[in-house]
């Protein structure tokens, strides 16, 4: 039935004001930002897989959650947005057997031989969509998927994540969810070594053991503003959103120089980067003691975010991608 409807619709109608996008719950914050494109996002919830975490992030008005394990027939979806090759891609393949829809594959992660076998990584490299979107050039080159591929950098809401007049407190902040379990990419052990005997604060969902997540983006922005230094220790993350948010808040940042980070941070200008733990600690201590340096670096960091990661650019590029996939669908 949907095939026939699609043919009739494409023959009769102009480009819709809003696309109906079938997707899956993945990164609440990223998806909240995607929702600012104004399209309708229908989220397919599959039993025993990730659900939208409402305690952490409110569901946007144009994000609709489908009944569990159901893809509603009476909604005319325009395309599928897959955000994970671990389970979503497979579900999408099942869906298109009865509803042939074009697929955008958005890749948030990197191939990680530490946790996934080479055989599985090879298989995942075959899981491509009609358009493949990566969040950094680094990520795109690591996956080695060239056909119909593009890079859309994160967008940072620089109105929410902005400098606020607040008294700085003498601590180093790191934001990370599931930090211990994701040691292989977030480098929890390195973080422990670098911050040993320093006043370090962790924010993020860590089973209540290490820390708790902020309840809203505003609360998180306040955390970034209160700290003197933001420390990022990731070793395998294309571009950590928390690092960008911290920079947007005008934080002085110290970070590992991995993946796309050296493309964003110029050492000594808008932050400090190094892959030497001793040096990371020294730079952190230096910033804790030097207010003027923190201020200059923080201002430069915010400028970088406004130039490279503007939210409007992010939304425009996604809107173009959505138009592109729908044009391809007509053909």
């Amino acid at each position, binding site marked *: 039935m949907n095939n026939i409807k699609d043919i009739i619709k494409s023959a009769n109608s102009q480009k819709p004001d809003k696309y109906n996008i079938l997707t899956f719950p993945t990164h609440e914050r990223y998806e909240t930002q995607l929702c600012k494109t104004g399209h309708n996002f229908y989220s397919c919830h599959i039993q025993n897989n990730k659900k939208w975490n409402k305690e952490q992030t409110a569901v946007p008005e*144009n994000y609709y959650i489908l009944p569990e394990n159901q893809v509603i027939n009476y909604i005319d979806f325009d395309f599928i947005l897959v955000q994970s090759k671990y389970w979503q891609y497979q579900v999408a393949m099942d869906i298109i057997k009865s509803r042939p829809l074009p697929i955008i594959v958005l890749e948030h992660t990197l191939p990680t031989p530490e946790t996934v076998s080479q055989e599985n990584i090879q298989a995942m490299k075959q899981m491509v969509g009609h358009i493949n979107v990566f969040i950094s050039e680094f990520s795109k080159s690591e996956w080695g998927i060239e056909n119909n591929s593009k890079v859309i950098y994160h967008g940072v809401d620089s109105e929410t994540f902005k400098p606020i007049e607040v008294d700085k407190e003498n601590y180093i902040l790191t934001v990370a969810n599931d930090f211990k379990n994701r040691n292989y990419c977030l480098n929890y052990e390195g973080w422990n070594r670098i911050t040993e005997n320093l006043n370090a604060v962790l924010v993020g969902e860590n089973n209540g053991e290490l820390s708790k997540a902020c309840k809203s983006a505003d609360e998180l922005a306040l955390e970034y503003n209160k700290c003197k230094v933001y420390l990022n220790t990731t070793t395998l993350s294309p571009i950590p959103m928390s690092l960008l948010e911290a920079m947007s808040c005008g934080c002085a940042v110290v970070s590992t120089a991995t993946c796309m980070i050296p493309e964003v941070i110029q050492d000594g200008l808008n932050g400090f980067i190094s892959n030497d733990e001793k040096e990371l600690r020294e730079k952190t201590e230096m910033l804790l003691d030097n207010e003027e340096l923190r201020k200059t670096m923080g201002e430069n960091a915010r400028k970088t975010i406004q130039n490279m990661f503007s939210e409007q650019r992010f939304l425009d590029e996604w809107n173009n991608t959505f138009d592109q996939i729908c044009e391809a669908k007509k053909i």
Partner: protein
Amino acid sequence: MKTQIVYDDPSTIEGFETVDVKYGTSGLEQIVNNSSEEIYITNCLDKVDFQEANKILMIALTKLRLNGKIVVNGTNLRTLCLNVIANEVDAENFSKVISNCSSLRDSSDIEEILIQHNLTIETNVIRGNTYEITAIRTNS
């Protein structure tokens, strides 16, 4: 706002304004007129008697805003009967279908009502024994 009108169906879409008409139309009536951009009447009209189905449809139309979309689906009377005559549907399956229904109608009847109320039919598609109509309110 998007509205979904159902009859005793727990599998609704979270984020839609859901109205269950099992115990009447008061919930539906409370929605502000012309406020819904999309209305879905799904697996619902068959479950109520003929007059009640008309009433639900009429009230729903008053809630639809200009350029808003309404989607109605249900069992298609004519197709079901033709399938019985053609032995595509046997007595057992026919009984199953009608055991869940309090009324049946043809998609062309729904289409006619929608057209009479100044809606433009976008699609009217039959699959198996069911119809699904999508219409747009193009003028007031």
